[in-house]
């Protein structure tokens, strides 16, 4: 048996630190919103001429009077991702760019993807994204409140907030782009983290009923150990699947799978070191679950 409970205090400090740092990052550095939430235009280009390089392309775009343009390589040497704000929302901007590129580089560019999101739509998408995440947290809270005693709910929700905040903190730290698929990833993380916590809690509650003489400090550790191989295997297979998406699923899914990978790692950690420590700190005992049973019967 691994003595997870020995490190409860240590990791609580680590978690608090992580959350504080993430919050500071989120407040002061903010998130790197993609065009989905900020509005603007994105173009994915593929060049057929190997002589074209990112510097010359960047120079060309900066001459086009598009405002702040970002030109980056995308995955390999031939693909480029161009982003700009398109403040005036010009209608024929793509056509103009095409003409201008053809003039300078010859007909060597293939427009693989064009996305243009107006300011109104991006504001709506951001709003619905925030609503979706808040709603999912609220529903999880409700679900866990029905299924467990309030001490458990608090632990699960704290774990959930930890996972979402720290994942977003990492995205802020590395200025990774937040787009629609990241919202999907965050929601899935919420589901996964809950799932992981619930499995351990289920066992804690079962053990609470079984043993009246074991203190919660020991009992959580027993429960964590009993469910440990399941935790490891499920996390491992999920991570394997996500790793396959990250490495082979193409550039478009990179951000999504990275967010999910972070979420699964944090989710697994928080189920053990946040959710359970809350139970310990709230001095949950057999009485907590038995009282509930009486109330229900």
């Amino acid at each position, binding site marked *: 048996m691994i003595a997870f409970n020995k490190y409860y205090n240590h990791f609580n400090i680590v978690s608090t630190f992580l959350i504080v740092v993430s919050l500071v990052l989120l407040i002061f550095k903010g998130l790197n919103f993609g065009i989905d939430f900020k509005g603007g235009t994105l173009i994915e280009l593929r060049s057929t001429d190997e002589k074209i390089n990112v510097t010359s392309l960047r120079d060309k775009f900066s001459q086009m009077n598009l405002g702040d343009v970002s030109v980056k390589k995308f995955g390999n040497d031939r693909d480029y991702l161009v982003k700009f704000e398109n403040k005036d929302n010009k209608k024929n901007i793509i056509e103009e760019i095409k003409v201008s590129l053809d003039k300078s580089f010859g007909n060597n560019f293939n427009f693989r*993807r064009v996305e243009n*999101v107006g300011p109104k739509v991006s504001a709506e998408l951001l709003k619905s994204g925030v609503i979706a995440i808040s709603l999912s947290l609220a529903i999880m809270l409700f679900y866990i409140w029905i299924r467990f005693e309030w001490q458990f709910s608090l632990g699960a929700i704290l774990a959930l907030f930890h996972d979402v905040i720290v994942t977003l903190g990492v995205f802020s730290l590395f200025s990774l782009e937040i787009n629609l*698929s990241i919202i*999907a990833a965050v*929601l*899935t993380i919420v589901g996964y983290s809950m799932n992981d916590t619930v499995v351990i809690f289920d066992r804690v509650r079962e053990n609470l009923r079984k043993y009246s003489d074991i203190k919660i400090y020991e009992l959580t550790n027993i429960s964590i150990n009993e469910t440990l191989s399941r935790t490891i295997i499920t996390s491992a297979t*999920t991570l394997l*699947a996500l790793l*396959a998406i990250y490495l082979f699923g193409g550039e478009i*899914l990179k951000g999504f799978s990275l967010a999910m990978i972070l979420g699964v790692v944090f989710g697994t950690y928080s189920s053990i070191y946040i959710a359970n420590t809350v139970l310990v700190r709230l001095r949950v005992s057999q009485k907590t679950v038995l009282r509930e049973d009486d109330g229900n019967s």
Partner: protein
Amino acid sequence: MLYFSKLRILFITLFSLLFILIASSNLFKVDDGFFNKKINLGLDLQGGSYLLLEIDNAPVIEQKLQNLTTTIRNYFKDKNIKINNIKINNQDIFFNVPDENKQSIIDTFEDENSDINPYYPRFKSHQLILEDTGNNFKVSFSKQGLISLKTSSQDQAIEIVRRRIDEVGTNEPNILKRGNNRILVELPGLDDPMRVKSLLGKTANLTFRFVTNNKDSFGVEKLKYEDGIEEASVSKRIIISGDNLLDAQPKMDTQTNQTIVSFSLDRVGAKRFGKATSTGIGKQLAIVLDGKIISAPVIRDTIASGSGQISGGFTFQTATDLALLLRSGALPAPLNIIEERTVGPDLGQDSINAGMIALAIGFLLVIIFMFVKYRIFGLITNITLIVNLFILLGILTLFEATLTLPGIAGIILTVGMAVDANVLIFERIKEELKDEKNNIVAFDSGYTKSRTAIIDANITTLLAAVILFFMGSGPVKGFSVTLGVGIFTTLFSVYFIARLFTSIYVSRNRNKERLI
């Protein structure tokens, strides 16, 4: 618990086979009506354009108010009430009446059978709201009035949009209403989205009006030519408009070697056109499209045939597009493209390939891992996983669901998470075997005791998927579908298929020690 009746085994086998068959119909061409269903590929996989158009209703409201001032003035004139100082300011109409007529105005506006203020019994609201501000009356659209106005312009616009897109001839376009002032257009496998965009971006409001030298500003407006430099004074009086057109076609004028658009008019239009061309010989007739003059030819002869032509330095492409716009009619209001997502077909194919490779590798990794970890029970899990995948694909096929790139990610994720239920069960059985010598009893209680955890775990994921389905848009929605459906197929395959195999294996090895 471990016992399966023959009937049940038969049912499970048939059910699984059915879905495997349905899923495999994606790979083969089958003529049978039931089996030729296919999973739709989303725009991000097959390439195409997604356009969200917003109707700019401000000009429509402006026009309505303009008409309304005339209506109000004439209506009350007939009733011998003099309307003074009527003017439009910021989407409101203001006017004065003598004090003794005030009540009569109020009564007219509040009458449910009012001629000028339609009443919607269903919403218990009039179209217009009349307010007495003290020194004048203020008329504005009610909330319901605005909604019905928007809805009707949306209905007209979607019809025109559909006609224009049909004329371009793209395959299976998807044109839907969104809210009361938006139109969603999905164009799969489109080669040239720019052409469609430019076609949808034009109102195509065509009018024929005389050019005048009259300097009187009332009834005359200054309009620019297409080149944006030259100007001409044009009468506001419309001789014929796009509504009068029966047909329009691009043609080659053999005399001048120019591309032109020839048109034919309906009876009313032909009559008016004939009259105008007979009285106006020597005058310039301006052909105005969306507030710009295309050309303003001098009338040389009376045209009574009801057909004519527009020249204006067209290329064959621009003439074709103008003819198309004129045939399909004018939009009631300008459309703005507020969101566009276009994926080229080669990127779509690349995404499919990448998705499939990721799926294959993810699947393989999970299968190897499970076999190494659990041996015979890993094998059972793996068979379950394969059948699960087929059932998932089968259901998506059956409902002809749209598969997107995030959707593929959802399938891969399902593969990763689907083992969870089996693992929960097997680990529980392992624990049970520590105290329980009887294999069958241990297996039974393993299944029973792990159930709450499994249900909890799946409900939490399902809840997340459901929220995503209702809140997400486009490709992300595809993710929620595969994730959500995946939960049900996982539970089915774990509790029926995996348990069937497990029960067979355990019954045969009931006395074996260290079974798992």
